[in-house]
């Protein structure tokens, strides 16, 4: 039987990566595991599952060596009867085998490839369309990320089906889903969630669902209320630099917070010129885009952001929200595009020197989506703030004060400032990524997925900081898939749709 708690220590050489003394999940329950990116959620789950590299890492589980843990009957039972869905579908699939072959490998061989779960995950679309995907060799962009993700989930469901059909009492079946909805839009996410909970209702099993998507909470509270007593919401949070603790996450508190979130009250529209006014239609990379004001995406409208306004752009994944942000920032050149940004008229012909001298960091700044790529990982935290166009050079105290807006004050030591960005967790990198732009005094701030990789506390801190910036007069343009949160914070008048 699975122990109530695991005590796990993971080190790489002399460097402690993560330590958790109380990693315990709900037995025969659906466990949702939240926590900021890079805190160690996946590592701890993989440690329990016996999936970590013994040569690269120094691991101890419940005081025993990792070799012993991996050879333990229980660990092997968990592996045999459960399934681990990896975060990145591309790394899970073998590029040299057709998806069809991979869906019938090993313990899945006795199951039909195209079964009800696959059909459900593909929204009962035509079998022919699914067969086409099954015949593909997985490549980086083919099938799409979402399709690969659903195929991977289909594999897990085949294993769950085997578990459901088995007459044997198998109480050690643990199914781990590491960010299973990262590449899925809300519709497919909901389909997957319904299917998972439906299977669970037939015969309970232990599921660990690692996610950053807090909107799952509302979904379960509204659509699967009957299963609430079988669902655990847990959050992994940092106690010290390497010690993390797993505690219950209050879904009620989240829902209350969401319910209490209101769009800011704007004063009467001023006669001042808008900070940004961009044309509604544009073309780039052979595709045409239209910015609309209505959800049906039928009425083109200029993208207009007034001083101190927070505007939200919505579109499905891959439609071109980031492309639009890059066009506004002059990084991409759309055909026949014109806009006015803080009194500066800019078109597709405006030379780079104008952007560099007058706009970037002075009139507008942008936070990129992936902190790992957007930050220089080879420099220190202090150096990240050097070179920014600020009124005065920041000293250590200034940097600490800036960081304190999104980091715990106690962690802000001189040694922390000297730490390389590469050694920060994903959530810490994201907060640093945001701060680098938010510290600037620009009229317009564009944020591409600002809540990526943050825990609930981080989300609240970032939203608080954005509100402060807005009140101080900065205009904010948001791009995010966290529709639930931003729908509650931004009034309908200030939501645009990209078609």
């Amino acid at each position, binding site marked *: 039987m699975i122990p109530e708690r695991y005590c796990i220590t993971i080190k790489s050489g002399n460097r402690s990566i993560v330590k958790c003394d109380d990693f315990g999940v709900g037995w025969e329950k659906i466990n949702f595991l939240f926590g900021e990116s890079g805190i160690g959620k996946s590592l701890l789950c993989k440690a329990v599952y016996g999936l970590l590299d013994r040569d690269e890492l120094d691991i101890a589980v419940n005081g025993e060596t990792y070799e012993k843990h991996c050879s333990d009957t229980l660990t092997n039972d968990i592996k045999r009867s459960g399934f681990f869905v990896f975060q990145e579908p591309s790394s899970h699939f073998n590029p040299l085998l057709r998806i069809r072959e991979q869906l019938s490998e090993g313990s899945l061989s006795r199951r039909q490839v195209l079964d009800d779960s696959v059909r459900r995950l593909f929204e009962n679309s035509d079998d022919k369309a699914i067969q086409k995907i099954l015949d593909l060799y997985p490549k980086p962009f083919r099938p799409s990320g979402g399709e690969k993700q659903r195929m991977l989930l289909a594999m897990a469901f085949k294993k769950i089906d085997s578990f459901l059909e088995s007459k044997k009492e198998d109480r050690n079946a643990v199914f781990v889903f590491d960010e299973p909805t990262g590449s899925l839009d809300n519709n497919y996410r909901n389909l997957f969630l319904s299917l998972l909970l439906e299977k669970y209702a037939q015969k309970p099993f232990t599921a660990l669902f690692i996610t950053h998507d807090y909107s799952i909470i509302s979904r379960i509270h509204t659509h699967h209320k009957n299963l609430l007593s079988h669902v655990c919401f847990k959050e992994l949070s940092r106690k010290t630099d390497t010690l993390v603790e797993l505690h219950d996450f209050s879904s009620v508190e989240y829902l209350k917070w969401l319910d209490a979130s209101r769009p800011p009250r704007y004063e009467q529209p001023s006669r001042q010129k808008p900070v940004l006014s961009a044309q509604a239609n544009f073309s780039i990379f052979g595709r045409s885009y239209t910015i609309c004001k209505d959800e049906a995406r039928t009425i083109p409208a200029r993208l207009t952001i007034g001083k101190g306004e927070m505007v939200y752009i919505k579109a499905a994944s891959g439609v071109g929200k980031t492309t639009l942000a*890059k066009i506004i*920032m002059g*990084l991409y050149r759309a055909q026949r595009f014109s806009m006015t940004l803080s009194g500066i008229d800019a078109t597709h012909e405006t*030379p*780079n*020197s104008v952007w*560099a001298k007058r706009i*970037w*960091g*002075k009139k*507008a*700044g*942008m*936070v*990129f*989506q*992936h902190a790992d*790529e*957007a*930050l*220089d990982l*080879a*420099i220190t935290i202090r150096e990240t703030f050097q*070179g*920014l*166009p600020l009124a005065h050079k920041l000293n250590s105290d200034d940097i600490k004060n800036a960081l304190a807006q999104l980091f715990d004050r106690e962690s802000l030591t001189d040694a922390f400032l000297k730490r390389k960005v590469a050694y920060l967790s994903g959530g810490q990198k994201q907060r640093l*990524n945001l701060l*680098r*732009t938010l510290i*600037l005094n620009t009229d317009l701030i564009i944020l591409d997925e600002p809540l990526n990789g943050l825990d609930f506390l981080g989300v609240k801190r970032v939203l608080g900081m954005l509100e402060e910036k807005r009140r101080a007069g900065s205009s904010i343009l948001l791009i995010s898939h966290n529709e639930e949160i931003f729908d509650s914070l931004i009034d309908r008048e200030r939501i645009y749709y990209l078609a």
Partner: protein
Amino acid sequence: MLSLRNKDVRWAFIWLVTTAIIAVWDILFLNKPALKLVVAGFFNTFIIAFLVIFVTLLMGWMATLGLHYLQEGKHKTGYLLLNFFFNLIRSVPQVIGILLGYVAVGMCIQQGLVHSGFAIFALLSFCMGLFIFLEMADCMWERIDHYQKLDFYNAMRVCGVSQSRIINFNILWKNSRIHIFNKLISVMGIAVFLQCSVDFIISVGLSTQANQVTLPTTLGNLLANLDSKQDILAVGNTLTHPLYFPHLFFEHLQGLTVAFLIVFSLLCIHNIANGYAERHRL
């Protein structure tokens, strides 16, 4: 931490220790005039090689920045012209280019335009650097190109960080110095090899302007020296007269030392560069 377990450190140590042992042996058994020549040849060769590294780094860096700013500023003509000039240099075989440079330096010395030793060294280094620096420029250019494709570059630019800081500090210094240093080790090897080759070619009398009299003593022209040639021939003699072998270490030290220092130094530089690349997973 540097440790002898690292291949690059181990080979640097081997090179130093072996060179020191040879120095002690030569001090004990090589005649004074020859010893003076070998010492001068060794130091001159490596001083020039180090100067070549400096010149290559400087020219490579300037070329990279030049191309980058011309491209970013959309100065198409300037960019094409500079690129054409670089390709012109690239089209000249390094040995030929350096040989011509040496002839020019030899003429300057003969006409009394250059007097001091350092000026001659600097000119020779410049000649070599001119035909090597593109290797460094290519390395830097590739690094900049790689980072420009990532969000890293644009994310910093839109925060108002100056382009020169991103290129020089973030890309070249913080994220590429290991690659650049590795390239510099290779440049050192190229410089020693080309120097020895060109000096050897000159010493067989291809030019009246550039010859062993006008140019400083290096390992290359020492190897072409009559005494050294005889010493090398003595090695062949041992194949038919094996009992003559011990004499090599007492009577033919000049040629043997010079030949060994060239070959062994090149081998060590090769292994240091490989070890460094392995250690930093380049």
